[in-house]
């Protein structure tokens, strides 16, 4: 079964924001993510992962009556944003929760775990697409 882990990160400012991080904090955080991804790959559960660019330019788009795009945002006041996601293939949901908890505890300022919220959702299955 496939799961998507969506990592929500705090905005840049604030108590746990990255503006206060030291170079060592960054190094530790990057090394953590690097090792986490490598472990997912090595253990055969990695399917896909993408990091999303900063939400600075993020827009919410709706179609107008004539189909033209109506854009809203960016929403500077929101406290968290979707920073990236992983898709993993595991044999039971508990395994996905364990992995989500691991990445949630990625180190932040002074190595203190960030305990970021990670939303875990099962990916629906269906008939293979014709291109697969």
């Amino acid at each position: 079964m496939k799961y998507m882990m969506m990592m929500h990160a705090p905005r840049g400012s604030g108590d746990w924001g990255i503006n206060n991080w030291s170079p060592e904090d960054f190094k530790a955080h990057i090394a953590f993510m690097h090792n986490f991804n490598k472990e997912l790959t090595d253990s055969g559960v990695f399917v896909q992962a993408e990091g999303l660019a900063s939400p600075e330019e993020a827009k919410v788009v709706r179609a107008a009556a004539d189909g033209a795009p109506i854009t809203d945002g960016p929403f500077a006041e929101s406290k968290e944003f979707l920073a990236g996601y992983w898709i993993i293939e595991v044999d039971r949901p508990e395994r996905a929760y364990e992995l989500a908890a691991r990445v949630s505890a990625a180190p932040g300022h002074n190595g203190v775990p960030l305990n970021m919220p990670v939303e875990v959702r099962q990916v629906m299955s269906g008939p293979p697409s014709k291109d697969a």
Partner: protein
Amino acid sequence: MTSRPPDESALHLLRELAPQVLGVVARRHGDFAAAEDAVQEALIAAATQWPTAGIPTNPRGWLYQVAIRRLNDQLRSDLARRRREELVASERGVTEPFVPPPDAELGLEQDDTLVLLFMCCHPALTPPSAIALTLRAVGGLTTAEIANAFLVPEATMAQRISRAKQSIKTSNVPFRMPTETERAERLGAVLHVLYLIFNEGYSSSVGPDLQRTDLSNEATRLTRTVHALSPADQEVVGLLALMLLTDARRAARTGPHGELIPLDEQDRASWSQPLIVEGVALISSALSKGSIGSYQLQAAIAAIHDEAARVEDTDWRQILAFYGLLKRMSDNPMVTLNHAIAAAMVDGPLHGLELLTVLDRDARMKGHYRLDAVRAHLYQMAGDHERAFAHYRAAAERTTSVPERDYLSAKAALVRTRAPLTPVDSLE
């Protein structure tokens, strides 16, 4: 596509032969799009069969025969379908559209690589289309390989290539060498596409890896081919030299975790001396021949960096002079940016910052992380760590490359916590 990758030499041979075979098939058949599909199938067949069966004695003839057979199969099924659809009553059988000529008559001695390049890099195509089509038709890469290099699904890349061929068909680009007058302009488009392929491999604009060396290697190989076929063109020499002199620093450019290492922090001992020697020889000979173009100037600047044994030996005055020439030659905001860096190294950071102000009014630079990154460096040089921090943070939030974001975040953290003066980091 291939369950087992062919060994290096077979792969190299295939990529060399791909445009030559396609040239002949396209000439004989007249339909470039169909010919290209057939040759692609022949290449895939070769990539699967040659590693086990061995390379045939006449590999070009082999590819040609397989491609023609595929083309005939395709035509036959098209004809059959059309016949069914049109309910043609005539009992006339389908005639063999082609009889493969004996090997001697293939006309394989004529190299169509340049003709194909001019066709695939046609100005009617958008750069992503031209790049994809060039890699497939001229580079001999499979759709799967190209899709992999650009991190998109294979079906997407197949569609992009097919649409590119459709555009060529509808714009009626003839399969022939451009005339002398068209040539200069069209060669510019060819070199630009090769340059983009190289850059995409060298500094990937998307994804977690900073470099995708396959693309850089392919761009360099194709540029070598253009140089061999068009040895008198000094801009081709300039582009080839630029690629070699940039590629020479490849190993020094990333750390063990794929992180970016800027020019001034690189271990210069790990730069490739053979590439530097070749690149310097090429650019020196090109510059001595007069008519100087922008690729030659960029190569000359790369050569100055490569020839400095230590970062403090860099001849910034000469770099500044070359950027001055480049600036007069093209209206490119990236040139203005690099010119400002060189000016800062020669006349101080405040002068560099002053030269950057013109870019605030340039719509092409709006929201571009490079402008913030350079400002941050120059403020850091000037000792204004508060501004340097703000611009490093802005740059980190604007870049779409993971290694660059990590690098800029670390720089921001560094100027916030400490206050060391470091020379300007990177021209890349």
